């Protein structure tokens, strides 16, 4: 599929990387020649220099062949205009990054009246993800399926864990909760485990199940963390604003530390239930003064990765229950090694959303059954949720008679509100939601999981 990406900021580059990996024909448009040539050298894409809102540039980028345009320049207005122009020139699908909170309330209007297919707000989506993690603090990361009915949580197995050095079938016998281990990360390797796989200490495992079953599992393994009531947020940027709003709406006590004076005032106006502190949130004295040790969670959201990491390490050393770090340069994998388990980055969150949309669009059937797509373990593992179509040929056939691809696992089946962990005798029925976990493979359609 031919895709045009306008704007090579952090988001643009992340999406270029992800979509090239999916095998699409990509043309990138940017006004900076240096960035452009670096990207063309690194990824298999074509570069066009120019202003992406002009017909001439879009023409040069092959607008007539393009099926999708993604506008991710620094300016919301340019992105919207770019999508409008491309749409009039015949591009069916348009995705714009719009992140100004002023526009956040009118996404519906922009989709319907301006004809944008999708509006991505990386900061809002990131805040959403962080708030989900805060609501379930035991997991290092949490992704939800079936509108939150099923979740995938990843946790680190420490050496004092009772499941250390135990094969999975043992764990299943001893464990009271109905959960399934669907991926294991060990150093740089990822495994989709079978029953005789042995868990070692320091593995990071991903487990699926309902929220309450996951809680039971966490309690039994001793990684359960108390409910978070008090949150300290460092940095009052866009993510900080969205997050404070989301969390204060659920009745949590929020303390937001922001360095910029006037920004503090506007935050106080828009977030009446939040305590806004004016000060440098990376300063140890201010953290002490504001009572860091009495907080249940700390979220580091400043614009500088290094500061976020330092503050997080400090909070971790002070024994804060849950520490969440935002980083833009997600390529470094050392953060896990220094004890920061929960790391989020806006580009990855937004990139996953776009990838899901593109995959659904690319699916020849036109009505792809992909509901949700999450990338786990630095993007090495994908968890995809499908809805089983009514006319599929594999309905009512027991799994032991179906041949599934290797390195692939069906996490669970969600049927009429019930969660089933499929065994050999279970079958698929129409309108089931199934969650498929796989490593190193691109799934576009539920048919792809069979040999």
């Amino acid at each position: 599929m031919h895709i045009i990406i306008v704007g090579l900021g952090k988001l643009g580059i992340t999406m270029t990387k992800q979509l090239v990996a999916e095998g699409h024909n990509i043309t990138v448009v940017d006004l900076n020649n240096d960035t452009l040539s670096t990207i063309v050298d690194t990824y298999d894409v074509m570069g066009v220099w120019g202003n992406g809102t002009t017909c001439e540039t879009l023409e040069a980028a092959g607008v007539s062949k393009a099926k999708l345009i993604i506008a991710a320049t620094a300016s919301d207005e340019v992105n919207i205009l770019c999508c409008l122009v491309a749409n009039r020139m015949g591009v069916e699908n348009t995705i714009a990054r719009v992140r100004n909170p002023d526009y956040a309330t009118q996404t519906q209007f922009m989709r319907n009246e301006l004809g944008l297919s999708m509006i991505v707000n990386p900061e809002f989506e990131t805040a959403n993800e962080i708030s989900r993690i805060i609501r379930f603090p035991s997991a290092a990361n949490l992704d939800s399926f079936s509108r939150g009915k099923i979740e995938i949580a990843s946790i680190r197995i420490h050496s004092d864990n009772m499941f250390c050095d135990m094969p999975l079938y043992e764990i299943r016998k001893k464990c009271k909760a109905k959960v399934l281990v669907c991926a294991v990360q060990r150093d740089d390797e990822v495994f989709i485990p079978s029953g005789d796989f042995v868990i070692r200490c320091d593995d990071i495992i991903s487990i699926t199940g309902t929220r309450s079953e996951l809680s039971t599992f966490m309690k039994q393994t001793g990684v359960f963390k108390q409910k978070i009531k008090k949150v300290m947020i460092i940095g009052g940027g866009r993510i900080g604003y969205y997050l404070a709003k989301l969390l204060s709406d659920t009745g949590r006590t929020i303390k937001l530390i922001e360095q910029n004076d006037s920004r503090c005032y506007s935050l106080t106006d828009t977030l009446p239930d939040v305590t806004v502190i004016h000060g440098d949130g990376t300063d140890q004295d201010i953290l002490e003064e504001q009572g860091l040790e009495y907080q249940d969670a700390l979220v580091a959201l400043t614009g500088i990765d290094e500061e976020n990491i330092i503050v997080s390490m400090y909070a971790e050393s002070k024994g804060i229950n849950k520490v969440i770090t935002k980083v833009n340069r997600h390529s470094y994998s050392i953060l896990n090694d220094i004890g920061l388990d929960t790391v989020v980055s806006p580009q990855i969150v937004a990139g996953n959303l776009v990838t899901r949309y593109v995959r659904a669009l690319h699916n020849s059937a036109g009505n792809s059954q992909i509901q949700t797509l999450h990338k786990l373990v630095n993007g090495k593992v994908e968890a995809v949720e499908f809805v089983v179509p009514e006319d599929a040929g594999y309905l009512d056939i027991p799994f032991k008679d179906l041949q599934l691809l290797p390195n692939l696992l069906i996490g669970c089946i969600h049927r009429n509100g019930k969660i089933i962990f499929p065994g050999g005798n279970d079958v698929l029925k129409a309108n089931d939601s199934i969650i498929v976990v796989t490593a190193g493979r691109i799934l576009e359609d539920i048919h792809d999981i069979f040999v």
Partner: protein
Amino acid sequence: MNYAMIFNNIGKILLVEAALLVFPSIGAVIYGENTLLSFALTIAALAVTGLLCVRKKAKNKNIYAKEGYAIVALSWIFMSLFGALPFYFSGHIPSFVDAFFETVSGFTTTGSTILTEIESLPKSLLFWRSFTHWIGGMGILVFVIAVMPKTESSSMHVMRAEVPGPTVGKLVSKLRASARILYGIYCVLTLVQIVLLFAGGMPLFDSIVTSFATAGTGGFAILNNSIEGYNSLYAEMVIAVFMLIFGVNFNLYYMILIKQGKQALKSEELRWYIGIVAGSVIIIALSLINTKHNVGESFRYSFFQVASIISTTGFSTTNFDTWPVIAKLILTFLMFIGACAGSTGGGIKVSRLMILVKSALRDIRKAINPRSVETVKLDRRSVDEPVVKSTSVFFATFMLITALSIMVVAIDGRDLVTTSTAVVACMGNIGPGLGAVGPYGNFADFSTLSKIVLSFDMLAGRLELIPMLMIFSPYAWSRKYS
């Protein structure tokens, strides 16, 4: 340096070469020649070495610019070393250095030969000799990118090192698709030429090998007298026109394919190319009318020879060594200029000449009015200043290597014209020069040292200097500097 990846890629190239050697082997079977054993031995040697190289898996799969250059330069050297084996094993070229020179001359599409008697060679060897032109013309690494299932994302570095021209772009967003389009155009044009030549009464074998040599802008003929031996005006004109066609940037053919022909005709490089050809043809023809031939013959010889030299092919229809000095001088200049960027031809390239001329004019204007802001423009677009700079450096380096090579070759004690045009003809991948290496002469009498230097020049000219120079630089290989 990522040695594992470099060897992996060279291994792939050697395996591809082994596969390509099957074609002349089939020829050997058809014509019942005794060269089959030499081909089989070469294929075996290539397959063993190739498999050994490919077997070692690289941990780090990233290729950066320097690995790209190293892969290209080393591949071409190894390819030529192994490609020389059939000539050597079969005993038709008893000296290995001679066989290596002949093969390098083939792959780099130069067309300089050390053979004094060509017609006595078995047909399968003649086929392999011309086939090397065809393989080298578009580039074997581009071929590998086109056929290999999934190439590494950084293959762009490899493509850039092998495709000639100051800037290398892609036709479509996927490198593999671009490489396929290029090879598609290349194959179709070659086929058309084969059909046209065959229709004009040339034997099928001759049509095929001549077309291969034209397509790669190589210039190995299978008659001792090159194209003159056919003595057919029709064949001459077909070959001349196709030599010019293969000297044009292939991107333009793609633009015609996607129905942007008008824009293709507006290309400034194409206009300069046609202008240079037309000007040279007229001046040479006029000088010939005054001295040797009638009007028709003058234009016939002049057109063919200009097309042959500017496209860096090197076919001949007459002994132009006996032409007036002005004609020979113009041909020598054309040897330096060469064909368009992105074509199969060699030389400095027309677009580089344009950048050089225009930046010289720009500097003069700037001297007159120092405050004026001026850029060098190609196709009404500003050329990036680093490209202008690297073009000047390229030109200077090209001249420097030419001068140094002339000095080394001069040790042989041949006359000035022979010595200097031999080097120029090799650097520009043309083939014949003037004097003793003229269209009726050959390179057999040079010493072993000269032949090695000339082989280096051919490779340096084909790969546009940097890759060949880089592999001799300690900075590229030493851990100390990386």
